[in-house]
């Protein structure tokens, strides 16, 4: 497929969509499926079949407000768009009967989602622009919304050097958490000497409560592929891998289909868009290890080895897959590329703060009214996210802390709610941007217990290669267990703090280095809670059952272990 053909495909698709009297979009991403979207689909399909030429039924990706799913959007010609929440099969039938079928429709008033609320108005959708709007399984719909034009533009009008410099100017930073400038990384791989290079998309998202990458891969797989193809062109790679965790079957299915379609149309594979550039993409499926999200472990896994990290340097940009220079970026980072190339670095760098450009997707979860997936410009305050977009705390409770960055991040208390959300500010607070999980907690949450939860996660997910992470996380988990059941002493807290530093400073990879963050940040802001557990023998949040008491002196210990009477002959 060449550029005019791409253009023609886009126009044809727009024409086709115009012919319908209306379109009925229903979410088919994992979140909505888990709340019953399949039943809704079954109710809608036979009805729409009768109106095949008038109404189009479009299965889409995530619409954002996952907590209110299943969601259905009705777009009737010459009428404002209406989104229905918590759709049941009965409601779906009603929607068709009252809203879609009649030529003078009277929309239902119940279950209608307000779209002029901050949840929608405060968002800036760049990466998620197509999410919930197009059918992710149809290439035509992606192309109709400007898809693959950035790749065409890069291939025809830009040199690989131009592409890298455009990205450097855009200020885009890695969305996997660490925030390394993407353009610099691309430039490093471009300059690296090697007859073979690779591009890898990291879709091994494992933080508890985070599902940004999954949604992107499910809702707009071609955007990821286009970003990867542009990366391949920029760095000189002919092979790309998308590493998706095995727990995301739908994302895998959609990506596979997208790759097949794109290859058939000549948008991937040999001679991409009739240029001299070849780029193949294959999927590698993870086997359920969190540590494989770490880039060196991920590459070991792609190469068929045990998923364990190795020491950097050498960085993947010098020596990655099979010793060749490898560009490895998060799926969300690749999701930004097409937009930057199409609309320019200038435009992109206007969004965000001085050091953190663009937008970031967050998975907003926890005790919050609007839980779902949001894309916000960098620099927005946490208060805006929680109280405006998120709609505040559930059932009138008060805010206590927000956990960003999953098990590698930290908790941000009330006094720092007005901090702008960007890489540096979060780091200064002892948390991190992470991949974008944002768990909001209210005053019924016990902080040592939260720290214990995350430590348990790190302990389970430690690969076992280095001692501080393997044994240190287990011992930290045990100490937190003592604190939360009331059997800890002040010495235990001291030991816990020592261990945090050891594990942070000496672990081999990021998983270990950052695993004490939940403890360190909760100790920093909620030390009194730890002390209440230890000294006061109470849990201020009322969550922990204080079942045991610490053994404080030898007499008590002796009393507990009555000596066995010995017979003396």
């Amino acid at each position: 497929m060449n550029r005019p053909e791409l253009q023609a495909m886009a126009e044809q698709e727009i024409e086709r969509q115009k012919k319908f009297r209306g379109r009925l979009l229903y979410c088919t991403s994992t979140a909505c499926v888990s709340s019953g979207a399949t039943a809704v689909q079954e109710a809608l399909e036979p009805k729409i079949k009768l109106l095949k030429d008038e109404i189009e039924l479009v299965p889409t990706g995530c619409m954002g407000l996952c907590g209110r799913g299943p969601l259905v959007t009705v777009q009737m010609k010459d009428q404002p768009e209406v989104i229905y929440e918590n759709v049941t099969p009965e409601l779906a039938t009603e929607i068709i009967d009252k809203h879609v079928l009649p030529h003078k429709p009277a929309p239902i008033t119940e279950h209608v989602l307000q779209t002029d609320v901050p949840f929608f108005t405060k968002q800036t959708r760049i990466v998620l622009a197509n999410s919930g709007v197009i059918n992710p399984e149809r290439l035509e719909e992606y192309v109709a919304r400007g898809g693959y034009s950035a790749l065409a533009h890069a291939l025809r009008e830009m040199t690989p050097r131009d592409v890298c410099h455009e990205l450097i100017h855009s200020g885009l930073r890695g969305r996997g958490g660490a925030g390394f400038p993407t353009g610099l990384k691309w430039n490093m791989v471009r300059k690296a000497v090697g007859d073979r290079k690779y591009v890898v998309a990291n879709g091994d998202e494992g933080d508890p409560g985070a599902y940004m990458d999954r949604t992107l891969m499910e809702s707009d797989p071609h955007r990821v592929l286009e970003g990867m193809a542009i990366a391949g062109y920029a760095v000189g790679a002919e092979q790309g891998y998308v590493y998706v965790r095995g727990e995301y079957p739908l994302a895998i299915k959609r990506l596979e289909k997208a790759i097949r379609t794109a290859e058939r149309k000549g948008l991937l594979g040999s001679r991409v868009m009739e240029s001299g550039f070849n780029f193949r993409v294959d999927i590698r499926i993870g086997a359920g290890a969190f540590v494989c999200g770490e880039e060196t472990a991920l590459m070991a896994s792609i190469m068929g080895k045990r998923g364990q990290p190795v020491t950097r340097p050498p960085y993947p940009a010098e020596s990655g897959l099979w010793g060749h220079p490898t560009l490895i970026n998060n799926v969300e980072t690749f999701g930004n590329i097409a937009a930057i190339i199409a609309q320019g670095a200038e435009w992109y760098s206007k969004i965000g703060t001085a050091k953190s450009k663009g937008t970031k997707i967050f998975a907003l979860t926890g005790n919050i009214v609007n839980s779902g997936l949001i894309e916000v410009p960098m620099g927005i305050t946490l208060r805006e996210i929680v109280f405006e977009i998120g709609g505040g705390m559930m059932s009138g409770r008060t805010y206590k802390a927000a956990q960003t960055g999953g098990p590698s991040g930290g908790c941000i208390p009330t006094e720092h709610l007005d901090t702008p959300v960007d890489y540096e500010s979060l780091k200064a607070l002892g948390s991190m941007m992470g991949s974008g999980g944002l768990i909001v907690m209210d005053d019924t949450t016990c902080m040592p217990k939260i720290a214990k939860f995350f430590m348990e996660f790190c302990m389970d997910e430690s690969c076992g290669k280095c001692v501080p992470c393997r044994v240190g996380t287990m011992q930290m988990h045990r100490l937190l267990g003592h604190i939360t059941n009331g059997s800890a002493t002040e010495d235990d807290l001291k030991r816990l703090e020592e261990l945090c530093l050891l594990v942070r400073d000496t672990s081999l990879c990021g998983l270990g280095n950052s695993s004490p963050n939940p403890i360190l940040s909760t100790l920093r802001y909620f030390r009194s809670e730890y002390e209440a557990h230890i000294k006061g023998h109470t849990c201020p949040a009322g969550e922990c059952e204080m079942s045991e008491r610490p053994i404080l002196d030898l007499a008590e210990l002796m009393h507990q272990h009555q000596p066995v009477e010995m017979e003396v002959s």
Partner: protein
Amino acid sequence: MSVITLTINEQLVSAQSEQTLLEAIREQGVEIPTLCHLEGLSDKGGCRLCMVEAVGTNRLMPACVTKVQEGMNVRTESERLVEYRKMIIELLLSERNHICAVCVMNGHCELQSLAANLGVNHVRYEYVVPDLPMDASHERFVQDQNRCILCVRCVRVCHEVEGAHNWDVMGRGVNSMVIADLYQPWGSSRSCTGCGKCVQVCPTGALSKKGSTVAEMVKHHDFLGWIMNGREKNIWEYR
């Protein structure tokens, strides 16, 4: 190969550019504890005992897997490093059942002597006391998971030197275990050649000769060097 200069413990020294930091440090006669490192095997950087401080930064570097660089300035000893090394040994001792009094390696064990050298006189962490199996199915050797510190010297020597790859690691985190083939009894393993290299490189009593009792197992620590040297020079006599 070019020569570079770096600073180790405030001493300006020279090293070959291909060397690791550990090699350069040991060449200077500076002692630095290691456990997973063994001359002749690839380095994995797992025990974290050889961490050194990069002067001027807060960063620690594992000496065994860090290549020397021009102008590097490292310190191998500091209060923090000593404390960290002690803590790592204590963590290892707490992880499994390291009871020296009933161990075949008592008195010859690398973990034991490291603990003694570092002044570990008690373990501040709770002993985990896991219930781990022993495998005595092999004709001549015994594997005791309770003494294993997962340094994977055995895995590396079997893969890299013997070329059999009988050993590998199963599970992850604290549940990791070194297993024969796909978790078969060692005795029924088809890939094991019975060479005993793994037994000789094992720093603790996890792998031992059958029939040895407490403190009887003495391992030949120069064994591997002898093999590597012999292969190069065609000398097949063990002296």
